[in-house]
C-alpha cells in the first residue's frame, strides 16, 4: 500500500507521498478519512443494533428464558474476556499515541500486545463454544442438552421419540402460538431433540438438563449450585434454545469482528515494522484504533446482557 502511495505521487508536485491526488492538504485527507471511519463505525453499531433489538424483544417477551438459560454461561470466562478486551483497548490507545509521537518501538510493542489480547479473547471464546457444543447447548433444532447418564440408561432414544410424538399430536398447535407454559418442550419439527421434552418428564420423575460431570468442565463452567435438575416441572422453561440462538448470534458476530480486527492489526504491525508511519502520517493506525475500541465497546454491552442476568 505504501509503495503504491509513493509511486502514484505526481512527479514534481508539492503533494507529500501519502497525500492522494484529489486532496489539497494532508489535514483535509485526514479529516475525510476520520469522518468516513466514524460513519462506517455507525453502520457497525447499527449492524449490532439489529441484534440488540432482537435481544430486547425476546427478553421482554420471554424473560424467563433469559433468567433460566444464562446460568449456563460462565461468568468467570465472560469476566476474563472483558478484562482482556479492556486491556487491549488500553494497549491500542497507547499504540495510537506512540504513532502520533513517533515512538516506533512502543508502537510495535503495543500493537503486538493488542494482537496477543485479541488472540486470548478468541481462545477463551473457543473454550466456551467448545463447552456449549459438547453439552448440546446450541440454537434451534441443535439444542440437545445432555441428560445424566442414569436417565440415558433408563430410556432408549426410541422410547423418547415414541412417547413424545404420541403426546405432541394434541398439544402441537398450542406450542407454536401460545405463551410459554413454563415447562420445557422441544420443537415439533425435530423429534431428535425430544430428550428435553416436558412430555418425557411426565414419565420420568427427575429428568432435566444437568452436566455430565460437574467436576470435568473447565473452571467456571460447572453448573450453578441451584442446578436446573432441582427445579420442579412447572418451573421449567420452554424454548430455551432461543437464548442460545441469541447468544451465538451476538457473540458470533462479535467474534468475527474481533477476527477482522486481528487481521487489520497484523497488517498495521507489518506496516509499522516497515516504517510506513510517522507523526505526520499515521491515519491507518488511528482508524484501526477506532475500530478496535468499538469492537471492545460492543463486548462491554454483550457481557452484562448475556452473562449477568439477574
Amino acid at each position, binding site marked *: 500500500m505504501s509503495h503504491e502511495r509513493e509511486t502514484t505521487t505526481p512527479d514534481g508536485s508539492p503533494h507529500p507521498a501519502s497525500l492522494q491526488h484529489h486532496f489539497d492538504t494532508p489535514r*483535509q485527507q485526514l479529516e475525510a478519512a476520520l469522518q468516513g471511519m466514524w*460513519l462506517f463505525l455507525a*453502520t457497525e453499531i447499527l449492524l449490532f*443494533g439489529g441484534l440488540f433489538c432482537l435481544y430486547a424483544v425476546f427478553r421482554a417477551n420471554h424473560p424467563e428464558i433469559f433468567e433460566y438459560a444464562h446460568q449456563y454461561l460462565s461468568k468467570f470466562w465472560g469476566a476474563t474476556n472483558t478484562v482482556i478486551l479492556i486491556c487491549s483497548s488500553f494497549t491500542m490507545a497507547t499504540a495510537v499515541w506512540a504513532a502520533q509521537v513517533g515512538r516506533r518501538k512502543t508502537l510495535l510493542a503495543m500493537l503486538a500486545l493488542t494482537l496477543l489480547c485479541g488472540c486470548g479473547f478468541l481462545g477463551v471464546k473457543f473454550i466456551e463454544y467448545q463447552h456449549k457444543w459438547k453439552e448440546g447447548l446450541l440454537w434451534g433444532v*441443535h439444542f440437545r442438552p445432555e441428560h445424566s447418564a442414569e436417565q440415558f440408561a433408563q430410556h432408549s432414544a426410541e422410547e423418547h421419540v415414541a412417547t413424545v410424538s404420541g403426546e405432541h399430536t394434541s398439544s402441537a398447535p398450542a406450542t407454536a402460538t401460545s405463551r410459554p407454559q413454563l415447562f420445557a418442550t422441544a*420443537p415439533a419439527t425435530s423429534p431428535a431433540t425430544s430428550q428435553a421434552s416436558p412430555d418425557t418428564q411426565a414419565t420420568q420423575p427427575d429428568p432435566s438438563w444437568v452436566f455430565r460431570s460437574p467436576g470435568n468442565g473447565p473452571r467456571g463452567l460447572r453448573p450453578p449450585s441451584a442446578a436446573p435438575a432441582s427445579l420442579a416441572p412447572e418451573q421449567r422453561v420452554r424454548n430455551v434454545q*432461543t437464548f442460545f440462538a441469541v447468544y451465538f448470534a451476538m457473540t458470533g458476530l462479535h467474534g468475527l469482528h474481533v477476527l477482522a480486527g486481528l487481521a487489520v492489526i497484523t497488517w498495521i504491525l507489518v506496516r509499522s515494522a516497515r516504517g510506513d508511519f510517522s507523526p505526520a502520517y499515521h491515519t491507518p493506525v488511528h482508524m484501526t484504533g477506532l475500530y478496535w475500541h468499538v469492537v471492545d465497546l460492543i463486548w462491554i454491552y454483550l457481557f452484562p446482557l448475556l452473562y449477568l442476568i439477574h
Partner: protein
Amino acid sequence: MSAMNPANPTSDVPPATGGNYLTQTRGILSWVFTRDHKRIAVMYLVSILAAFLLGGIFAILVRTELLTPNKTIVEPDRYNQFFTLHGAIMIFLVIIPGIPAALGNFVLPIMLGAKDLAFPRINLFSYYLWLLGALLAVLAIVLGSVDTGWTFYVPYATDVSAGGTLMGGVIPVLLGVFLLGFSSIFTGLNFIVTIHKLRPPSMGWFQLPLFLWALYATAIIQILATPVLGITVLLLIVERAANFGIFHPSLGGDPVLYQHFFWFYSHPAVYIMILPAMGVISEVISVFSRKHIFGYHFIAFSSVAIAVFGFFVWGHHMFVSGQSALLAMIFSLFTYAVAIPSAVKVFNWLATMYRGAIVLKAPMLYALSFLFIFGIGGLTGLFLGALAVDVHLHGTYFIVAHFHYVMMGSTLFAMIAGIHYWWPKMTGRLYSELWGRVAWVLAFVGMNLTFFPQFLLGTHGMPRRYYNYPPQFQFLNVLSSIGSYLMAAGFVITAIYLLHSLFAGRRAPSNPWGGATLEWQCSSPPPTHNFDQPPVVGDPYDFGALKYDAAIEGYVSKT
C-alpha cells in the same frame, strides 16, 4: 491490493493532453482497475441497465402469463419464480443503486468542483461488491429457484421445500442482497464525506445543487438503514442453513419480528429509491423552465425531512400482520406526515415552471410525466396509509399499482430523464431528440396503461402474486399486458437511439441545455481531472449569466 497494478495510471496522473476520461488511457485493465469516479459510474450504468433488461424480461413474462386465466405460457411454480426474480432484480439491482451509484457517482464530484470522490478505492470496491452480489443473485436463477417474493418472509424463505436445494435457492440470493447492501453503504458513505470535505471553500451548503441535497439525504438513509438489512439477511441465512430458531415459529422464533426488521430497512429503502429521483427532477425542471428553482430551501430541507420521517413509517407494511392497534395508528399518522415534504417538493416544482420558458426536450418530458405519475402514486399511498382502507386493499393489485407508479413510473422515469440530461456530458454525444419524444410517448402511455387498470383490479379484489384469476378480471389484465408491451417498445427504442448516438450522434457542446451547475463548465466528456480550469462557483440556478450560441449549439457564459 489490485489497485497497485502498474496498468492503472488513470486517476493519479494529471491530464497530459486534451484527452477526456474516456480516451485518456486505453485497454480493458485501465477500466477494470480504474479509480476514476466517472469510469466507475459508466461501469455501474452499463451493469444496472443490463440488470434492468433482465428484470424487464421477467416483467414481460409475468404480464404475458397473466393475459389469460390459468396457464398461458408457464406453470404456476415457474410464474412464482418470475415475479420473485422480477421484484428482487428490479429493486436491489436497478432502482436502489440506479440513480445514486450511476448518475450520482458521475456528477457528484463534478458538481462540487472536486477531482474525485473522497475514497476512490472504496468506490471501486463498492462496484465490485455490487457486481458480486448481482452475480450471486443471478446464480440462484441458474442453480435453483426462488419463489418467496422479494420480501423473503419467514417461513417461506426458511422452509427448505421452497426454493429447491439448500445452496441453490434462497441463500445465494440473500448473500447477494447482503453484498449489495454493503455496496450501497459504501456509496452513501463516500457521498457524505465527499460533500462535507471536498466542497470548495466558496460553496456553502445552500449553494449545493438540489441533486446533491437529495443524494446527501439518500446517503443518510443508506448508512442508517442498510446495516439493519445486513444483519437481517445474515440471520435469515443462518435460520435457513442451521435452523437457528430466531424467526421460525416452530423453533420458538418470531416471524413478525422478521417483518419488522425487513421493513425497518425496506421502507426507508423506498426513499433511497425516490429521493435521488426527486433530485434529478429538481435539476431538470429548473433548467428546462429557464427559471430559478422556486423554494430552494424548502426543497432541500424536505429531502432531509423525508429521510427522517422515512424511518418511522415501516409499520404501515404490517397493518394486517398482527401489530398492536396503537402502534398501527402511530405508523398511520407518520405515514401521512411523509406526504407533507413530498407535496412541498411537488408544489415547488410547479411554482418553478409557472411563467417559465418551458423547453420540451426529452429530459423535461420525462420530468413532467414524473410529476403526473408521482402525483397518482403519492396520493394512492394515502389510501393505503389509512388503516381501514388498507385492510381492504392489502395484498391486492392496488398495492402493485401504487408502488409501480412510485418506483417504476417515478424513479425509473426520473432515471431516464437523468440519463438523457447527462448523456451529452457522459458520452460527449447528442441523442436524437425526435426519437426521444417518440419513445417517451410509448413509455408514458404504456406505463399508465399497464398500471392504471391494476388499481381497478385491486379495488375489485384481485390479489397480487396470484397465477390465476376469475374471467371477469381478464379485460383489465389484457389492457395491463398491452400497456407493458408498449412500454417495453418505448424502452427498446430508447436503447437503440442512445446506442446509435454513441457512434453517429453529433458532438455535444460543454453546455447543451444551459445548466448553471458546475458539471456544465467542464468539457463534454470531462477530462480525467474534471476541470482544466478551476470552475467558477455561483448560484446553481442562475441562468441569467448564460446565453445561447447557435454556432456550437450550446450555451456559453455572457462574460
